[in-house]
């Protein structure tokens, strides 16, 4: 018997993941049931062993009726068997769909976020530009109107005004220096010129302690003002300045030296150090660059100030040439003004009697520059109040103590001097590390040659025979290497004619930088003996020194 029914009518299409025997197992099981049921129906109807077609059809129909729709039952069984896989597939599909949708949504959100981010960035940039523009406008506004500048933490606006006692503006210069308080800010130090309006805008400075060195240009005086800059408070300093220097005075020295010094050919170097003067309740000093304003006055025994000579001497000290030859002008006596001075007696010098022909020969003198001065003994000084004998005429007197000190210095310096320039002798100086002179004379003469340095004068007497050509070579020695020295050639006055002749016949000194190719001449012993026999003393001659 074959059940005339298609069990697979409602089954889903075959799937790759379904068990291979699933469909057949379902069909076989249901077929077995229906076959059994058909047989039962046939037996129940008293059927025969070999039923006719109608009986079989009826039995099959009844069996199907009692069974239900086999195709639907088969579909139900197939679905139950495949339920887990179908569910897993559905879940997978669902998850994939959800993931796809999520990705799409995420992409959309990211795109939106990116778009919004770009818009936000553009808006932020626009806002920043607007802020910058506003800030620039604010800066420009504040620059044009510093009064509107808000207080800053730790910095303050500093302005200064230089005015006269009557309130008129004063030109000058201001040097601000000081140390800011706190932090690690560097020290402040700068200079500002103050114009005709007397105003100077220093700008912002960190708070701290400062000093302002004010120079009043017209008065040539300086004042130092100490002040403090406090945080966030505007500082406006007003300095009352002098508009002209103190009155000039004529100064002379009323000397009454002791007898020993009355005939001495000396002069005195006196230093005057001006003290500050009070002006508008402030101290003002003489404006002098690089010193405390002290003046060195060269004063002769009569009390006359010889600064013309002193100045010239200082200028010519390195040249060895007369001032006229250099076309130099003599400097006038310095202008002294009304200050309280501190007077210092410096030293005694011997400038005068050996230069009877005038100041132009000052430089030619063999002056041991420091022969009479010992810094170890210190200086003598006292404060001098100007004594007005007449208006603006000051006379300064040395006290007895000061004269005693000068005498002491004088005696010591006389002993210290190792050269005395004989009366009537003249000196010719040359400079250089080494000199070589060829002297041609026609008469017997004496010539002194010496090295004048800061350590003293070291000289030799040379007896030059008539019509003799000699070579002189003086080497400064290794101790003077690299220094500039002054060699002195002295001639006795009674033999000056011979030297004059010699000079006229070509006395020359040749300066050489090096003596490598020259033979060192050695003075003969007989010559040295004659030198030592000379009545004048030049200290100990150095034997064998070339």
């Amino acid at each position, binding site marked *: 018997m074959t059940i005339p029914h298609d069990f697979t009518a409602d089954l889903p299409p075959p799937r790759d993941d379904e068990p291979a025997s699933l469909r057949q*197992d379902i069909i076989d099981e249901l077929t*077995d*049931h229906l076959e*059994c049921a058909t047989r039962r129906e046939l037996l129940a109807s008293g059927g025969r062993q070999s039923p006719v077609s109608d009986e079989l059809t009826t039995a099959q129909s009844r069996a199907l009726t009692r*069974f*239900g*729709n086999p195709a639907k*039952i088969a579909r139900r*069984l197939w679905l139950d*068997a495949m339920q887990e896989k179908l569910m897993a597939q559905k879940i997978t599909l669902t998850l994939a769909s959800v993931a796809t949708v999520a990705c799409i949504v995420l992409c959309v959100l990211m795109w939106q976020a990116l778009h919004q981010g770009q818009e936000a960035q553009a808006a932020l940039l626009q806002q920043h530009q607007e802020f910058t523009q506003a800030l620039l406008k604010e800066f420009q506004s504040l620059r044009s109107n510093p009064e509107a500048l808000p207080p800053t933490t730790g910095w303050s606006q500093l302005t200064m005004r230089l005015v006269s006692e009557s309130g008129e503006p004063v030109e000058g210069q201001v040097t601000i220096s000081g140390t800011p308080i706190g932090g690690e800010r560097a020290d402040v130090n700068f200079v500002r010129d103050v114009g005709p309006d007397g105003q100077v805008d220093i700008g912002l400075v960190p708070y701290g302690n400062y000093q302002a060195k004010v120079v009043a240009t017209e008065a040539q005086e300086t004042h130092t003002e100490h002040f403090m800059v406090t945080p966030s408070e505007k500082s406006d300093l007003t300095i009352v300045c002098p508009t002209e220097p103190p009155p000039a005075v004529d100064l002379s020295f009323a000397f009454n030296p002791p007898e020993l010094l009355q005939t001495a050919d000396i002069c005195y170097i006196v230093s005057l150090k001006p003290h500050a003067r009070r002006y508008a309740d402030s101290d003002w000093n003489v404006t002098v660059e690089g010193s405390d304003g002290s003046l060195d006055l060269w004063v002769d025994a009569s009390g006359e100030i010889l600064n013309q000579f002193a100045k010239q001497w200082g200028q010519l000290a390195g040249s060895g040439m007369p001032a006229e030859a250099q076309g130099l002008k003599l400097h006038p006596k310095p202008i002294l003004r009304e200050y309280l001075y501190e007077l210092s007696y410096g030293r005694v010098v011997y400038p005068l009697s050996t230069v009877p022909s005038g100041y132009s020969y000052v430089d030619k003198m063999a002056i041991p520059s420091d022969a009479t001065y010992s810094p170890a003994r210190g200086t003598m000084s006292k404060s001098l109040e100007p004594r007005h004998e007449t208006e603006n005429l000051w006379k300064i007197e040395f006290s007895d103590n000061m004269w005693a000190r000068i005498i002491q210095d004088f005696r010591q310096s006389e002993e210290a001097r190792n050269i005395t320039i004989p009366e009537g002798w003249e000196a010719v100086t040359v400079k250089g590390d080494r000199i070589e002179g060829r002297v041609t004379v026609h008469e017997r003469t004496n010539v002194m040659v010496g090295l004048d340095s800061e350590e003293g004068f070291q000289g030799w007497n040379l007896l030059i025979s008539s019509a003799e050509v000699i070579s002189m070579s003086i080497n400064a020695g290794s101790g003077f290497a690299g220094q500039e020295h002054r060699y002195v050639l002295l001639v006795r006055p009674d033999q000056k004619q011979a030297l004059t002749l010699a000079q006229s016949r070509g006395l020359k000194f040749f300066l050489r930088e090096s003596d490598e190719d020259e033979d060192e001449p050695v003075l003969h012993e007989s010559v040295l003996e004659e030198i030592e026999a000379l009545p004048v003393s030049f200290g100990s001659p150095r034997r064998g020194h070339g």
Partner: protein
Amino acid sequence: MDTKLLNGTLEMMMLEVLSQGPSYGYEIVQTVLSRSGGQFELKEGSLYPALHRLERQKLLSSYWTEHEGRRRKYYKLSAAGRKALAARRQEWQSFAQGVNGVLGLDYGIV
């Protein structure tokens, strides 16, 4: 009979049939229907899904044989099925007693 009332007990009855020994689908269905005295107006085919469900639940195992040229699938109660049957019988007895008590029926069904 109400199918809702039947659904909860059909599987228990199948397990009970198979507790007597292995059987195949038609025989199981007929046994259940005959024992019920015709009270269950069920389509015979509708019992197969329950059988397959019990098999997937490992309460039944199955095997195939040849009978008159046809393949026949036999079901056998597993150890798990036996435990489940005992539990469901106990539940049913408690339920039936409760229901009978409420309904005033003093006779049991077992």
